[in-house]
């Protein structure tokens, strides 16, 4: 269990994270979603004791990170695929990490094998592709067999086979009862990878829930086609719905489908189609974070 408790982090005048609070439960894969620069990496760095919070705190299973006698056996983290000395071999990198936390060196070979980089273990990391570096980061994260795992943008640079492998890997970790926290700015990816999603933008909490919750509660519209679209549109508008008329039918927002059906019946209008339109997570995400994209494209001032 990960807890972020009223966390604020400022770098000079820049507020990276602003009064952010959420919990991450074990046993599921939790996606941490936000546009670039929204404070995801900062939050993760504070969780790992790398950056000091300006206000608030984070805890892992009720403890501050620096209280763990052997942190790698409690928390595994992959922060940045390139946080390895380029002149060191993958094996030596993992050996140094294992040694610092009194993890048996036999574990190094196991995780190299697991991550599929055993054949390049003695090559310098500087020559690794992004995908191989990601796999080394994953090997480092599971080195201490931790119950809590953090991954910052782990999917970047992986090939399709690698992406399928890593989804499976996250799901297995969660099934084993571990806490799995995965950041991404790619909502379509998170829809497939995560069970639970936390959305932030500009350092603020925006939403938390399952993919279903998020797509159901936000931006859902209903498509309707009927014998008399014009009259139905008027009736629905009178009762508070917002209606867009097209040649094919009506796109109705701010009214659930059952209510639309009742209104059509009351007006004696036969419906030929009544279809709730699920917003894709991508649309939800765009809508949720529309105000909080730091480097979005803006219209030129007129």
């Amino acid at each position, binding site marked *: 269990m990960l807890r972020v408790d009223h966390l604020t982090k400022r770098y000079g005048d820049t507020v990276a994270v602003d009064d952010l609070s959420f919990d991450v439960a074990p046993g599921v894969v939790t996606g941490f979603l936000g546009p670039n620069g929204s404070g995801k990496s900062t939050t993760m760095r504070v969780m*790992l*004791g790398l950056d000091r919070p300006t206000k608030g705190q984070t805890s892992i299973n009720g403890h501050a990170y*620096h209280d763990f006698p*052997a942190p790698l056996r409690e928390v595994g983290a992959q*922060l940045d695929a390139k946080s*390895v*000395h380029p002149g060191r071999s993958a094996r030596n*990198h993992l050996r140094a990490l294992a040694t610092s936390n009194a993890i048996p060196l036999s574990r190094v070979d196991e995780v190299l094998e697991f991550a599929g980089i055993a054949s390049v273990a003695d090559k310098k990391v500087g020559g690794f592709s992004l995908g191989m570096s990601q796999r080394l980061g994953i090997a480092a994260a599971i080195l201490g067999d931790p119950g809590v795992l953090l991954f910052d943008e782990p999917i970047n640079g992986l090939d399709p086979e690698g992406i399928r492998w890593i989804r499976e890997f996250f799901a297995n970790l969660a099934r084993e009862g571990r806490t799995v926290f995965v950041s991404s700015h790619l909502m379509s990816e998170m829809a497939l990878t995560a069970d639970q999603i936390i959305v932030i933008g500009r350092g603020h909490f925006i939403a938390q829930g399952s993919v279903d919750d998020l797509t159901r509660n936000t931006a859902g519209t209903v498509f309707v086609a009927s014998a008399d679209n014009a009259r139905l549109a008027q009736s629905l508008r009178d009762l508070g719905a917002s209606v867009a008329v097209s040649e094919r039918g009506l796109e109705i927002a701010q009214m659930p489908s059952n209510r639309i059906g009742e209104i059509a019946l009351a007006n004696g209008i036969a419906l030929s189609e009544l279809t709730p339109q699920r917003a894709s997570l991508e649309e939800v995400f765009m809508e949720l974070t529309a105000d909080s994209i730091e480097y979005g494209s803006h219209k030129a001032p007129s």
Partner: protein
Amino acid sequence: MSGVTLASVTRSEWIKFRSVRSTLMGVIVTTVLTVGLGALIATAVRANWNQMDPIRQLAFDPVSTSLGGTLFAQFAVGVIGTLFITSEYSSGSIRTTLAAVPRRSLVVTGKLVVLVGSLLVVTEVVCVATFLLGQSIFSGVVPTASLGDGAVLRSVLLGGVYLTLLAVLGLALGLILRQSAASISTFTSLLLVIPIILFLLPQSWQNATTKFMPSALGRSMMSTRAPENFFGAWTATSLLVLYVVVAFAVGVVLMVRRDA
């Protein structure tokens, strides 16, 4: 299973230290500069000995002369010490390190133990070797010294101490500045540029200030008798230790306080 301890962190830092090529290169350069330039200086002295001014012949110190290459090797050890920490910042691996060992004082202490332990062994061997080589070059023409003489042994061994302390100074500057280029150029300024600026001052000011410079302290440490206007060996050693301790303490405080 125990957790993170100074012993485990030191072993981890030792793996890191010896698993990058820059360390090996640094040790090779240190050895080549100390021994090679030492031999070159000794050969030049031997060749010119008979033309040398008798007063200078009288002041000749076979120990500091044979160790003359250390004045060049000091930059190599400084780079070894600096890169031990700045390469972690430039590659981003410092975050991996500190996530594994959240107590940062343990990380820097581990690095200090590894750096001092390994460089002291290397530089003492190199200094003794270059001293012996120098004496064999001098032998027959130029007066020589023997390690059996207490003052000689002290001067040779303090040569290794000097180089090791400068490696720690490099580490300290790396902790403070976190960038290889900035740290190495600061190191070079302290050892080379400032003494040159002092050289432009009036003689009396020079006499009062030059002796405090790290390279002058090194010369005092490696001489059997104190050069004119310089400190004695032990005063010089104490002063250099003081500089290094202060710089290192500043580096540790900054490292512990700053975001990684």
